[in-house]
């Protein structure tokens, strides 16, 4: 199947991944993956465990060095940059295991996200958005991050990433290990985040729920791109209905 061409038209793409290959100690984890994300979209990358979804995000975020291929963000090659420079360009990444600072308070975790910006008004600006998205974080500001529930930790991880004021937010399985009620809350928050002007690239195993909020989807299988299209196209694809949605 051809790489997606919906988003690349007219050079509107915020993020372009071109034939990216990443290997761990010689073992190919993802092979020649090409995706693109346009400004304002919610794009989901789906696939089973071990399909290479997390590797894809890590390779984009600069946490893994790709073996081959190119990643461009805002028209700039980023696949050779270190992670902190990629974040500074406006690409925020929330890893699967959240990676909060458990001994610091919720407020200090948020503050750490904001230190990318020099002036205090710039640093504090996203706080209002964060508290609107997740009011319960406001109640927990003085509490150590390690004492939060799983769902609250996910909210904090997303909020901390938003404090860097990204153009693109990449979330790796935000629903993992979280009680169902909070999963809905987090998916709803992703939609609200898009409304604030932040583009979202989401990796999920929960295909049905993520297709409900996504514009487009890519499906990976054992490191290769096997399907892509609009959320509706992917949802209606016979293989997807059979294999992932159990219909």
């Amino acid at each position: 199947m051809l790489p997606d061409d919906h988003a690349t038209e007219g050079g509107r793409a915020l993020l372009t991944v071109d034939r990216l290959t990443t290997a761990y100690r010689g073992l190919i984890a993802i092979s020649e993956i090409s995706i693109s994300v346009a400004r304002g979209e919610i794009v989901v990358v789906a696939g089973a465990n071990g399909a290479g979804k997390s590797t894809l995000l890590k390779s984009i975020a600069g946490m893994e060095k790709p073996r081959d291929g190119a990643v461009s963000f805002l028209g700039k090659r980023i696949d050779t940059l270190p992670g902190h420079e990629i974040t500074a360009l406006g690409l925020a990444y929330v890893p699967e295991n959240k990676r909060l600072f458990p001994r610091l308070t919720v407020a200090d975790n948020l503050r750490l996200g904001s230190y990318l910006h020099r002036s205090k008004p710039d640093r504090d600006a996203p706080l209002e958005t964060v508290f609107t998205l997740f009011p319960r974080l406001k109640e927990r500001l003085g509490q150590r991050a390690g004492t939060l529930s799983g769902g609250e930790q996910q909210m904090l991880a997303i909020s901390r990433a938003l404090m860097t004021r990204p153009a693109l937010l990449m979330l790796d399985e935000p629903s993992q290990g979280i009680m169902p009620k909070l999963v809905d809350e987090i998916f709803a928050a992703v939609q609200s985040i898009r409304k604030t002007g932040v583009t979202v690239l989401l990796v999920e195993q929960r295909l049905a729920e993520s297709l409900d909020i996504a514009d487009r989807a890519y499906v990976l299988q054992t490191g290769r791109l096997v399907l892509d299209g609009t959320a509706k196209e992917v949802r209606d694809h016979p293989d997807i209905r059979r294999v992932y949605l159990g219909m």
Partner: protein
Amino acid sequence: MTHRQLQLVLLSGVVIALAILPRVITDVYMLNVLVLTLMYAALSQSWNILGGYCGQISLGHALYFGVGAYATSVFYASFGITPWLGALAGGVISMLLALGLGYPCFRLKGHYFSIATIVIAEIGLLLVHNWDAVGGALGIQWPIGPDSWVTLQFARDKAPYVYLALGLFVITWLVTYWIEDSRWGFWWRAVKDNPEAAESLGVEVFRSKMAAAALSAFFTALGGGFYAAFVSYIDPESVMTFRFSLLFALPAVLGGIGTLWGPLVGAAVLIPLTEITRSYMGGSGNGLDLIIYGALIMIISLAKPEGILSLFHRNAKPDARP
């Protein structure tokens, strides 16, 4: 009053109390212990910047201490330059040295980093041992002169050394106080807790470590300069052995690693204890202080890994939900 203002008030109280002490204590031996306690508190506070806040456990800070002591001594004994400038020069040299050594060493993580620091400090000790221009194994004797604040020589009265050590402690405390609320301080704690997460938030992990190492080395060298003036005779063994590296790390670990008051609390317990046992045991007690350090490390790591200060922290409890 905010928590931060409270800390400043607390510091003022401590400083006033310590400044009065030399008026009350006249015994030279006790003043000596007081000077050493404050000096190690300052040195441990410097070590704490890199070890406590940034989480890079150095056991080679004796190198920077030695560089400070030697720079000050050479400048004074050979060129007659005041130790105030000599110590500053030592600080700058140490800072550059820390940056040069940090470049390869910060590619190592955890224990490997600590081992590298021990080895490098030992190499430094051997080099100075065999470097005749700085006195080799014989060391450097400070020329005897009248008591003066310019040369920092006080033969009769030890009180000025108390004030100097106190001043050094206050400076390192204030630097740490500033760090606690600054961008660097947050970055360092992030690097300590989780370098990958720090990186994903735009923290330059490598540069953060380098900055912490440079600042830490600078103040450690100032302490070395002070010590050289205080004892007015140095040789490689008396300023650069592993024992010093241990004595900079231990008060912070004992009192509370990565805390504002940990180094002073730790030094106030550790230094009098070791000095007093050393003098009571005389020559036969050689090595007893090392046994005490070992025992204290074991007790702390088993009973209170967060240090003595954690005994007083109400909000340190994990169940502190509002």
